[in-house]
């Protein structure tokens, strides 16, 4: 391994409000570090700008399949070696793939940071993807696909995305399909890996009982000798046309005891973060807790639903705003109308200041409760850095507090249309 000094990794000016500091190497590799005094653990969470969104249609499922294949080792580390090494020293490791990213994390007691990091970098940079392992692991991914096909909620979510997005890769399942995976070879997967797992696509978040100097030193040492980039077909992301009219899909399932109703709108991308945070607040006002509008009206008072939730999911190019209910089929229409009526109210009447304050407190406390551990913090920083910048993550509570009733009304009017949205319904086939 060639030695470079840490002087090549330099600090990026970031928000002084954020307890983490961001660094970048000339080749684009980014590091976010936060020292947590007294913490007995270190979490290393590597975020890669190579989720399902970078796949062309006929490469669907490759980002997720690669996440599996990476654990099959390198020329120097046999299959299973990495897992046994991390877990054998009492650590945890796992990975996940979504549309906008894939990430790989290890949590160990602090003293093991130095010896486990080179194993993780070796896997990520030099995955061998042997032929026989490709075919064997593909069977595992097929089982994962089969498992999701036995879950009505997974299938309904897939149908929702397919109906919401006309062009964007967000319309395809992250897992891909058996058919799309059967169409690709081990060489394709290696090409996908070597093209995307390059320094400019990597953010390494390190949080816990490890000093900045030691973290940067080790990362600089370990993340060297990337494979040459062979290039790879890329998804062409065209702007998604706005939803026009009401798009409806109904799916029938053999063993569904309760019907499902999902109402979905698209929201802003990461470039309009304040609007996104406003939609976060609106989803709380609509359906978080018994005192929220939809839970109070539809579960507690009218008793039309088993449960109702609203969720805002931030995505790089186009976010999702959903209202989901579990209910008896005879209430489907009434619950859709009642939900739309609440959307209408949000568009027309500024929310009550107390109602807004309640949603703000809930979101700020949720934030406090979800930044308690090094693993949670590393995940937060990695996610924000991949989408935008890590240091804006900790501004979240302040930005939530800044909203006024009228801002929210504007945001509801802009994004939550009464004429243009998607309805997906799941019912029992009988």
């Amino acid at each position, binding site marked *: 391994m060639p030695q470079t000094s840490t002087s090549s990794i330099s600090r990026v000016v970031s928000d002084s409000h954020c307890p983490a500091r961001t660094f970048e190497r000339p080749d684009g590799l980014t590091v976010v570090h936060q020292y947590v005094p007294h913490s007995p653990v270190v979490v290393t969470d590597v975020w890669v700008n190579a989720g399902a969104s970078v796949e062309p249609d006929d490469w669907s499922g490759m980002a997720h399949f690669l996440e599996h294949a990476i654990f099959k080792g390198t020329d120097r580390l046999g299959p299973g070696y990495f*897992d046994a090494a991390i877990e054998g020293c009492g650590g945890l490791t796992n990975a996940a793939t979504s549309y906008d990213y894939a990430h790989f994390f290890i949590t160990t007691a602090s003293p093991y940071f130095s010896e486990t990091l080179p194993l993780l970098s070796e896997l990520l940079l030099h995955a061998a993807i042997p032929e026989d392992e490709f075919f064997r692991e593909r069977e595992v991914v097929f089982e994962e696909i089969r498992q999701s096909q036995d879950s009505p909620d997974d299938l309904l979510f897939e149908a929702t995305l397919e109906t919401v997005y006309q062009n964007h890769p967000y319309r395809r399942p992250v897992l891909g399909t058996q058919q799309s995976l059967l169409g690709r070879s081990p060489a394709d997967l290696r090409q996908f890996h070597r093209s995307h797992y390059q320094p400019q696509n990597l953010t390494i978040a390190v949080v816990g009982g490890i000093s900045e100097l030691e973290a940067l030193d080790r990362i600089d040492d370990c993340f060297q000798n990337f494979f040459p980039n062979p290039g790879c077909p890329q998804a062409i992301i065209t702007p998604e046309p706005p939803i026009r009219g009401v798009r409806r899909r109904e799916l029938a399932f053999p063993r569904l005891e309760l019907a499902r109703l999902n109402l979905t709108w698209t929201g802003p991308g990461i470039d309009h973060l304040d609007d996104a945070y406003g939609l976060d607040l609106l989803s709380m006002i609509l359906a978080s807790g018994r005192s929220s509008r939809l839970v109070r009206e539809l579960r507690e008072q009218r008793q039309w639903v088993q449960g109702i939730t609203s969720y805002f999911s931030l995505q790089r190019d186009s976010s999702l705003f959903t209202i989901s209910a579990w209910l008896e089929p005879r209430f489907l229409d009434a619950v859709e109308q009642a939900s739309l009526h609440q959307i209408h109210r949000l568009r027309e009447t500024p929310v009550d200041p107390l109602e807004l304050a309640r949603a703000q407190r809930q979101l700020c406390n949720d934030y406090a409760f979800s930044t308690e551990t090094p693993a949670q913090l590393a995940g937060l920083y990695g996610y924000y850095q991949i989408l935008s910048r890590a240091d804006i993550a900790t501004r979240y509570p302040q930005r939530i507090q800044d909203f006024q009733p009228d801002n929210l009304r504007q945001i509801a009017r802009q994004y939550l249309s009464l004429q243009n949205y998607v309805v997906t319904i799941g019912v029992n086939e009988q």
Partner: protein
Amino acid sequence: MSPHRVVLNNGITVIMVENPTADIMTARFFIKAGTRCEPPHLFGLSHLLAAVMTKGTGNLSSMDIAERVESVGASVGAETSNDYFLFSLKTVSVDFQDILTLGAELLRSPALPEAEVELEKRLTLQAIRSQKEQPFAIAFSQLREAMYRDHPYALSTLGVESTVAGLTRLDLEKFHRTYFRPDNLVISLVGCWPLDDAIAALEAAFGDWQAPPLPIPKVDLPRLTPQPTVRKTSQDSQQSIVMLGYLAPSVLLKNGDGVPPEYAALKLLNTYLGNGLSSRLFVELREKRGLAYDVSAFYPTRLDKSQFVVYMGTAPQNTAIAIEGLRVEVERLTALYLHNDELQTAKNKLLGQYALGKQTNSQIAQILGWYETLGLGVEFDEMFPEAIAQVTAEDARRVASRYFTDPYISLVGPAAALNSAIPSPVS
């Protein structure tokens, strides 16, 4: 951050850990009564009580309570489990006093309004029916029923339709009156308040609560002996779920305190077989053979007889191979000694992950309060790792031979696949 244990004059046991690192207060109130205390004709009673408990006091409506809790972004919840009933609070420190006052009122004298009982009962019946939507839930439920027969562990904590339908407000009230008393309560508190302030606040909220003169009823549960059977549910699913279960020991020693050696050995074998990406089942059945995505094992800590379960989801044509594969891996442990390095790796994994499972205030409050509630004492948290460290290969093999005899088998999947795997009538 070592735990302090105090018993208040009225018999409430308080476990407190002061953790200044975050502005969070977590309190967990454990009542020593879970589904194991439910009479057979009232299964689902404690779940329904949990659902209705936060929905009224003498002078507050369900909505008043929700607004008071949610306006400060706190969480207040009640739930039941096999061995205990749990009421929890979580707040930022400034709101703790107010929410504690409210929580004490809910815990001590819930109004259990009739209308709320009816609403939650109807929703519970729906939830019971909804369990049939998930193949895993069906497989687990039929395994439990086969293994536990007429013991309350046989059922999901929701209960069953036939008993839940008949539950009344009076049943809830009686259960509450019987078990919710200071000498049957453990409060586990972890957060940034100084110890003395926290104890004073608990004293103020609960100090005047007196236990009734009646003794707490003893629960008499059926004895269980293994009678392995095969249970099947056929449905046209994409996967078969294959689950094998073995009756396994409780966490309680028959005489005295400490960690039962058999419990420790089986916890270690559970880690060895089913915990993580380097576990034996994961490596042999997933990594090397590509038979499954989800393959694992669990051995829960229980007051009464527990169960050691291994399971996987697999393509229907692999059903027989999956049963065989799981059996071979479990039964192998009865015949051979684990290598020293295998044993050491499993110990490192179990103890490392045990430590990692105690990072948040909620996790710490849960584990300490739970040990105290089960009668193990908070010391169990220190004794457990020591007991694991002492398990030998001989212990592991002996315990495996004793418990991993014939498995109960539970299958869910397409009829043809189940029948070719194990020919017998399908339910």
